[in-house]
């Protein structure tokens, strides 16, 4: 008996409703960005690329898109390196305070973004270290919120790691770093890649931090869309959304080639 036949109808209906809640708004953004009319109506008035072209020519939205790409790339590089290093320590050390350290590194997920942004802003201003309203200040916030995702992804691949592989390399004459590079890093590299992609996308879509840390010169796509949405529904913003959606979907397809997403999600069950 196959599994799918055992799922009752009501469960299928519930799952369909949930998928609709998740996907219909995204579909609407895509249609709104491709509409031929001034705004989206039902049924649609036809498709055109006029808003996509308007987006590429718009200094506000295209500039914000490029800024988000730049910020997300730098965030990804930093988070992936320090997150992977910390994951190796967290999964291999027998130090008593490991749970507390892990808790500290994971806590940006539960600390409200608006509270973190405010804390950082107050810290920058009152300590006078010159990070208030700078690229560096915003970058630090982004690294904080993306690190938990790198740690969760990389730790998951290290938990089941067979240390005797590295021992074998050492006993065959490899130095400690060489053994690590040739054996461990090779085996965990897909998870490191997936963690990097997660960090990139989380940073790209990060809004709450920019409320306090962003400025007119430091406006990423989420903040630019939020500012425009408060006044009117610009189809140009929806066209910008299409490019963000494409980026997320491509990233997720790539990471699904690197790691088994379902196993990853199952193994990183959130603990409090």
């Amino acid at each position: 008996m196959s599994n799918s036949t055992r799922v009752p109808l009501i469960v299928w209906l519930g799952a369909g409703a949930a998928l609709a809640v998740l996907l219909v708004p995204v579909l609407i953004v895509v249609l709104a960005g491709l509409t031929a009319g001034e705004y989206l109506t039902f049924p649609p008035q036809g498709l055109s690329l006029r808003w996509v072209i308007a987006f590429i020519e718009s200094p506000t939205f295209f500039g914000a898109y490029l800024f988000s790409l730049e910020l997300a790339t730098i965030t990804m590089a930093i988070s992936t390196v320090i997150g992977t290093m910390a994951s190796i320590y967290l999964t291999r050390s027998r130090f008593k305070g490991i749970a507390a350290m892990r808790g500290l590194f994971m806590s940006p997920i539960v600390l409200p973004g608006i509270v973190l942004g405010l804390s950082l802003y107050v810290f920058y201003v009152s300590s006078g270290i010159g990070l208030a309203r700078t690229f560096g200040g915003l970058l630090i916030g982004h690294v904080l919120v993306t690190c938990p995702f790198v740690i969760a992804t990389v730790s998951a691949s290290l938990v089941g790691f067979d240390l005797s592989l590295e021992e074998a390399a050492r006993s065959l004459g490899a130095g400690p770093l060489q053994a690590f590079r040739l054996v461990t890093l090779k085996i965990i590299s897909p998870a490191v890649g997936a963690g990097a992609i997660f960090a990139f996308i989380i940073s790209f879509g990060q809004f709450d931090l920019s409320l306090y840390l962003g400025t007119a010169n430091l406006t990423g796509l989420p903040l630019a869309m939020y500012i425009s949405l408060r006044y009117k529904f610009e189809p140009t913003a929806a066209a910008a959304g299409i490019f963000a959606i494409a980026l997320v979907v491509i990233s997720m397809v790539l990471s699904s080639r690197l790691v088994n997403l379902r196993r990853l999600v199952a193994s990183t069950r959130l603990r409090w």
Partner: protein
Amino acid sequence: MSVEVLAANLTTKRPRAPALTLGRDRRWLLAVPMTLFFLVFFAFPVLSLLAVSLDKPMPGVVTAHGDFVLTNYIRFFSLPQYYEAAVRTLWISAVSTLIAAILGYPLAHVVAKTEHPLWSTVLMILVLASMQLDGVIRLYGLMVLLGDNGLINGTLIRWHSIDKPMPLMYNVFGVIVGTVQITLPFMVLSLIGVIRSINPSLEEAARSLGASRWRAFRSVTLPLTMPGLLAGMVLVFALASSSYVVAALMGGWKVWVIPIHIYERISNSGQWQFGAAISTILFLINMCAVFVYQVVASRVAGGRV
């Protein structure tokens, strides 16, 4: 590497070389950058915000003085506009959490039980992509759907089904819909793992003993998935109560919840101390939710969590 070199290495090195990258004693170096980074830019700023919230209110002044007074907290709990906002935040978050649980459970079940590799990957990509897509973009879609001139109201008016637009947005209803949309993926992701870990023969056993499908679900599957369900609910509650952007866009500044008050007090009035106090209260509410979760979870799981 030639055989001779290898052999030489084997003989000169201890046969059971320590396997770990930098040797056992220097491994902690790996955690130094992350730990320093989090202490300086996370723990210290968050604790300073707590210190600021205990200062006497001084408009426009950001730096902490170390007054250690409860003025800001007393003010929060003595003015109805603030404590009512706390109550409103709590119940909107609770309702959204419940809806997310009811919607998320069936989807997580289907994702967990899909054995076809392609379909399971596609479903995972859809859930993860909808989690990681910028919330503002998803809210744009919802606003086009629910607005007064939006798809639903606009279409029904053109078909003469209704005369004036239904209030679907810029109210509590809109905020709840937005919150559910934003948080649903987190609920699904929390559930997939536990649902997969249940041995299906347990439910089959209950069925073969004559239990109806509903009964088998209620007395076997649901209790076993309770830890994941509760963990997902805490996460969704924490996200729901602290989202500024959902309340700002879907509530149109008409639904006054705590995150809106934080932003408004600081950006419009420069009341840093009071804003810091409201932030602390928001964080404490989330911590209370985690605490309630731990109590409930240890009770339902009999200490298995």
